[in-house]
């Protein structure tokens, strides 16, 4: 068991989860007191000793399923305790027809018979997935094939019909809740399919090989430019707690950073209680300055999600600034401050921004030069020595003129000028990127490809 823990800790470290030596020793000590037959207890013991940040839980869960998958797990337990595993149910249902298999599944779901459902899923995987031993593919493809043949929509309809027949009145809320419940059940079926496929792949290729092929990235490290829909959702979920932490850290620094002058009156007044000895000193609260932020964001297709997350972060932090103004552009620029101020829901506001802002002038390809021109012309004199201007964009100008001298004008008027570029810095100035035309006028240009970099920028800003 101890070797397994060490292998497992190594796998976690490879997935960038920090596991210290002390923690893996603790995990081994924990397992020594565990009831090895109880997989949930083993899991709880390992996660509480090895994982100290909930963000890593997902990676942990996946790796745990690989290293302690029910089959390898039972196998090991068999060895050590000579106990028989659960009766092998695999293959019992392999001879039934597709439709019948589905009916049996619905039946076991309605009865809540987990064991039978598991063996039905196992049969479905055997029949539908067509797993070829030794082929180095991930489980996703097999899961897709199984679920398609299983016809998850038909499954949904059957469960729905059966359950709705049980309900007495048809109430629209009841139907919604039922649908929600069925989502949960189908999620469970998907999980069972995944588990079963993983179990087979692991026993075919070994835990370590499978763990290596696992993509385990924290939401903070997902690249904005290459994020798919699921990644984007994960990033937005990670954003809120991140912002909260950032705000509390900054607020704390503000309060602690420098203390004001000695509050003589208060110190003296309190000293009277100690016979005139000033045992405690009191200070005035320091005076705070908050910057005014002007965000100018490229929202064309390629960088839209980057702009979205940056704007959400800036607005979520808006208490730290005296004022936030935002502008969005593609080949025309428009102010959207009003949209954010009118709405108390960020997601809603962002939707409105993309719907309402007038950002297309000609062809809807980014034109930084034209945008600079129009920005300086319309809002140039509203930029003062209090304003910090932040440009967001990849500076890919589609071979239009850069008109960089206008940015120099912005820099002269503003307190500071920053540029955030979501592309890796190695790509700057390749192709139609003209980053260096603009960067000479900026106080700094930063690569900002993921939440972590974005966070560190915002922290420096304040």
């Amino acid at each position, binding site marked *: 068991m101890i070797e397994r823990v060490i292998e497992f800790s190594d796998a976690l470290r490879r997935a960038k989860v920090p596991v210290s030596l002390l923690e893996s020793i603790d995990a081994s000590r*924990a397992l020594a007191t565990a009831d090895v037959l109880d997989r949930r207890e083993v899991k709880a*013991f390992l996660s*509480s000793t090895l994982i100290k940040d909930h963000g890593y839980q997902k990676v942990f869960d996946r790796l745990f399923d690989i290293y302690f998958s029910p089959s390898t797990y039972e196998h090991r337990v068999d060895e050590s305790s000579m106990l028989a595993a659960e009766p092998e149910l695999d293959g019992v249902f392999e001879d039934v027809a597709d439709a019948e298999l589905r009916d049996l599944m619905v039946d076991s779901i309605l009865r809540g018979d987990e064991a039978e459902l598991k063996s039905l899923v196992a049969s479905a995987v055997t029949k539908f997935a067509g797993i070829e031993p030794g082929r180095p593919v991930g489980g996703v493809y097999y899961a897709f094939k199984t679920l398609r043949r299983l016809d998850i929509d038909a499954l949904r309809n059957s469960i729905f019909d059966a359950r709705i027949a049980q309900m007495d009145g048809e109430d629209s*809320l009841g139907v919604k809740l039922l649908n929600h419940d069925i989502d949960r059940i189908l999620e469970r079926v998907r999980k069972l399919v995944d588990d079963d496929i993983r179990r087979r792949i692991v026993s075919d290729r070994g835990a370590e090989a499978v763990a290596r092929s696992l993509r385990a990235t924290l939401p903070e490290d997902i690249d904005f430019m290459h994020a798919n829909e699921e990644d984007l959702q994960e990033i937005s979920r990670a954003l809120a707690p991140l912002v909260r932490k950032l705000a509390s850290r900054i607020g704390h620094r503000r*309060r602690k950073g420098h203390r004001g002058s000695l509050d003589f009156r208060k110190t003296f007044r309190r000293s009277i209680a100690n016979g005139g000895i000033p045992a405690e000193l009191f200070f005035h609260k320091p005076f705070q300055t908050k910057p005014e932020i002007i965000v100018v964001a490229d929202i064309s297709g390629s960088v839209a999600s980057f702009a979205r997350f940056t704007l959400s972060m800036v607005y979520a932090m808006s208490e730290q600034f005296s004022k936030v103004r935002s502008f969005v552009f593609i080949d025309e620029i428009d102010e959207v401050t009003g949209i954010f101020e009118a709405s108390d829901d960020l997601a809603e506001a962002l939707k409105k921004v993309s719907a309402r802002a007038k950002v297309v002038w000609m062809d809807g390809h980014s034109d930084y030069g034209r945008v600079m021109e129009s920005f300086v012309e319309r809002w140039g004199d509203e930029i003062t020595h209090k304003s910090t201007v932040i440009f967001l964009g990849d500076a890919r100008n589609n071979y239009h003129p850069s008109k960089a001298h206008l940015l120099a004008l912005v820099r002269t008027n503003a307190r500071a000028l920053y540029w955030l570029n979501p592309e890796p810095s190695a790509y700057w100035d390749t192709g139609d990127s003209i980053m260096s035309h603009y960067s000479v006028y900026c106080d700094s240009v930063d690569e900002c490809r993921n939440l972590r970099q974005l966070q560190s920028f915002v922290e420096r800003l304040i």
Partner: protein
Amino acid sequence: MSEQTQGFRFASSFQAGELLSSVGYLPSVEISSILFLADRLKKPILVEGPAGTGKTELAKSTAKALGARLIRLQCHEGIDESKALYEWNYKKQLLHIQADRRSESWKEVEANIFSEEFLLERPLLQAIRAKDPVVLLIDEVDRVEIETEALLLEVLSDYQISIPELGTVVANQIPLVFLTSNNTRELSEALKRRCLFLFLDYPDKEREMEIVLSKVPGVSKMLADSIVSFVGSLRELDLKKRPSISETLDWALTLVNLGLDEVDESVAKNTLNVLLKYRSDIVKASKGILSS
């Protein structure tokens, strides 16, 4: 050391769970396993999770189940060793010096004023010196500054406190320690390494139903089922403040008191303010779930 003679508090995870259930806290397998483990490894438990999932309640219930005294240190910004560990009662010391000025030499005075008589025990020292069984709860540890966190380390790993004038105070017994955090900032690695980590999320449907059934008298199984499904679907929306377990219970109680045995749309709409505390959340929920 004394803890070896004292034995362990729990015989198994299962028994730990039973004990908690007996005082009305329904634990998941994870909770009872980790509680059992904390006792075996003599490590504190760091409990994290969204507000209202029963973090503080877990410590209270454990104390109750073990018949132990709960010592609580409520953390806040600016807390320091004089509030967490111990403090010299300097007013009393001043008085003592003034009163005894003629009779003693300075050496004697010095020895006197740094004796236990002038020591004010704060929660951590109290927990360490306690002779009766205690459970120590360090609540909202994420609110203390990172520099202050270091004060906790000696207590949490060695169960001792060094007082320069008195020497090292070693624990009479190793108390069960709970730290709770709302995750408003990253805790230091050193602190996390010393703790077992328990993340308390919103309970799954089965467990929440059990909680509702056990805590709300007169609720029918059917009502509990629809209550829990409804709250569950609310939690999936992107809300400012998702309904906590205690809000689920409040809502269940409301519905029972209204004499209802089913949740339908108009009922849900009229009582939504029990579950949701922001106007924008209520609007969002009405749009997302209740509109037809």
